[in-house]
């Protein structure tokens, strides 16, 4: 194995691929949050709240579907390229966020809810002032899980011509160039750890403010 080549690879293509990768992750995560948060909230409202436990169980199961399968499912439907990649990633990123939004809101102490409603707070105000702030640490934890997952899953985007660090890994495999594989994997791992740490920091800060 040629370590010089490894560094060259990182130097030549690394930055561009990292940016591409981050774009994939950032955009899909952003859309996932925008979609999953309201959906999660909706599931905890009347009349869907009755089914919240079942929906939660479904989301947990769906999370078990391998990411490769998700990408594979979308290939025949949407073809290849950036948009299908983003779509598949977003679907995958939705699950932990929706799941934790529901679990977080359902987990708010029923006595606190009863007191809030019993004092004449409107349902809207209870959601904004009580439920969401108290569920926030759990929701952030969902986003954290989702982000780390997406960083890993985004390597598969290359398979449907979506770009990103997957390119290094998969061309390394096909060309029998281990330095490509190692460079791609290391950079992906570093990215995942970095994002995990940053969100973890936010999580701790929020928890300190909003925990009971």
């Amino acid at each position, binding site marked *: 194995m040629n370590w010089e080549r490894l560094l060259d690879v990182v130097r030549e293509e690394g930055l561009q691929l990292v940016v591409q990768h981050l774009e994939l992750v950032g955009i899909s995560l952003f859309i996932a949050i925008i979609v999953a948060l309201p959906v999660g909230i909706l599931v905890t409202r009347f009349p869907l709240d009755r089914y919240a436990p079942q929906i939660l169980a479904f989301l947990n199961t769906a999370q078990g579907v391998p990411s490769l399968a998700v990408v594979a499912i979308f290939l025949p439907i949407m073809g290849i390229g950036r948009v299908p990649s983003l779509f598949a990633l977003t679907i995958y990123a939705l699950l932990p966020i929706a799941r934790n939004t529901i679990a977080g809101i359902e987990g708010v102490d029923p006595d606190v809810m009863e*007191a809030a*409603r019993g004092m004449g707070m409107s349902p809207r*105000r209870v959601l904004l002032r009580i439920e969401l702030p108290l569920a926030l640490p759990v929701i952030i934890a969902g986003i954290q899980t989702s982000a780390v997952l997406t960083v890993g899953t985004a390597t598969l985007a290359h398979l449907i011509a979506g770009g990103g660090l997957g390119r290094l890994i998969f061309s390394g495999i096909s060309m029998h160039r281990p330095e490509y594989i190692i460079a791609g994997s290391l950079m992906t791992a570093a990215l995942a750890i970095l994002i995990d740490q940053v969100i973890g920091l936010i999580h701790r800060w929020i928890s300190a403010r*909003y925990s*009971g």
Partner: protein
Amino acid sequence: MIQFNRVTKRYSSMARPAVDGLSLDVREGETCVFVGPSGCGKTTTLKMINRIFEPTAGEIFVNGENVLTQDQDQLRQGIGYVIQKTGLFPHYTVFENVATVPRLLKWEEGRVAARVRELLELVGLDPDENMQKFPRELSGGQSQRVGVARAMAADPPVMLMDEPFGAVDPITRTQLQNEFLTLQQKVRKTICFVTHDIDEAIKMGDRIAIMNHGQLVQYDTPENLLLAPADDFVAEFIGSDRSLKVLSLLPVRKVLKRQFRMVSETAELSTVRASFDASERNRLVVEDERGNLVGYVSRSDMDKAGSARGWNRFIKPFPAFLPPEATLRDALAVMLQHDIGAVPVMEGRRRFMGMIYLDDIRSYVGEAYQERDSDSSTQEGA
């Protein structure tokens, strides 16, 4: 102030109604305590007042207005609500918790701040020390006080309290009960209070509603409840010591003797003897020239007195006194403790109001029971 008009509540999961045809009237400024075995429908009853539950049938009026026709949130903002586990908002400070309803009502912040201070002081918490704390930094008793302050924040005329002191230790509980009674003397809210503890009910209630299987069994003052339980269920629920409990309800003034034979400290022995001869008691109360209480003398000591004023040597001070607000239970306790059959009642330190005699307690309570018994037997006959 709060009227239940044949209110029934059924849950779909239950065969029999949780509350069954309840009619009852809570008067303004009174504390009505709902009490009964677990599952008898106390909480359900309470929660129908602020529409957390809606009745299946019947109507509830608060201040003459049907609760079902009012805006739910507005109704609730006008009703203080205290629950057992406090339900304090964990992410809000004590200040923010107490300020909840005033802020809902859009009070200006200066007024909110002043009110929060006032309330914390009212419930016995130092505002400066506690205002910025979070609920997790409070003890159980303190949390409960904040819960009460929060419920009273916008000065609602009506308060609902569901086992508010159920989750604290017995000492704190007694303390909170006493504080609450003092507070209620001041604020005179109309209160619906739920407990499953009959002693708490007797202590806190102006009126007690005893429930069983969703039905109102008896609605009466604590005194009447103890003296004349409506049926065996009530009698059993109150407990076999109900005659003792009644003592703790009756104030000493019910049997206070203001007029009785006394002797003056300056009297001659012959006068004292004459007083004993005219009385069937073996002890006489001694007063000084200005009518202040000095003590008592015993009949048997008079033979040893010798000279005309020598009897003064045998005057003994009373070992204990009672304040006018003491109960017959307090009086009995003092009598047993000091082995005396009479105890003086003093207002403040000096003003002698009269005497409590053991015989009088006995005959008073006995008569009270007899009266109720004959009442109820004539009712049954009719």
